[in-house]
């Protein structure tokens, strides 16, 4: 009987750990980002459009940054599809930086490339 309870407790604890730890680290939602919206310009070094998450890598004055775009559906809805951007293009990102100072990731609300705007989260866009 006792072993049964021990096994049950251990499995429950493992499940809880699995449920809670990713919650703190996940890049879903906006909990991990700064509240303020910032702009950043850079030169594209990598374009990835596809599941599980589309992204850009950009080279800026302050180093190499990862730009998380919308999910595949949102990214497509924003008009950002294969061929819209290529390595070397200049990009203006408007979005929220990671709240961790040492983590160079910005979650884009809007990207501007070659004078064309791609808005991934129209309802979250704040104009200055």
């Amino acid at each position, binding site marked *: 009987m006792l072993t*049964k309870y021990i*096994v049950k407790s251990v499995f429950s604890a493992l499940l809880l750990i699995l449920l809670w730890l990713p919650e703190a680290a996940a890049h879903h939602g906006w909990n991990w980002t700064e509240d303020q919206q910032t702009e950043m310009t850079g030169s594209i070094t990598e374009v990835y459009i596809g*599941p599980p998450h589309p992204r850009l890598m950009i080279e800026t004055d302050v180093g190499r940054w990862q730009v998380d775009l919308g999910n595949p559906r949102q990214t497509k809805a924003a008009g950002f599809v294969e061929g819209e951007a290529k390595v070397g293009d200049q990009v203006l990102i408007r979005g929220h930086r990671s709240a961790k100072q040492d983590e160079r990731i910005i979650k884009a609300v809007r990207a501007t490339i070659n004078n064309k705007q791609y808005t991934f989260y129209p309802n979250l866009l704040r104009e200055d």
Partner: protein
Amino acid sequence: MPETWLLSLSESALASALRQSAIGYPLLSSAHILGLSLLVGSIVTLDLRLLNIVKRGRLSELAPLLSRVAAGGLLLAAVSGLLLFSVQPAHYLGNNAFLLKLVLLSLALINVAIVHSLPAWRLLLAGQPPGLLLKFTAAVSIILWLAIITAGRWIAFV
């Protein structure tokens, strides 16, 4: 050389189709989860029975059944996993959680090969109770498969 081969996977027609399809990737993720549910669900049950934590059922019947369901789950998880990997191989090869998962998976498969080559396994199928060696490999198996799931889930969070 194997790395070049793995990286070239992303240029395959299948990988390209998966990047563009709205349903391909989520369906494959589902297949991957189904595969690992079958695999881990049955292998943990068998391991707990071998360790005598679960006491119900005859091992001479449970062992061949559960190990075969696990093998089927492993096959499904491996095929779907390779396809998921093909979507962006370079990204995954640079992901420490993914690399750790591959190392743990190799250890788990070595454990499987060892168990199936042991005379104690044949004796188990013939109706003998498991000895200390099989109990040890069962404990190793539980630890490795749970660690593999955890490392796999961590790929998205590093």
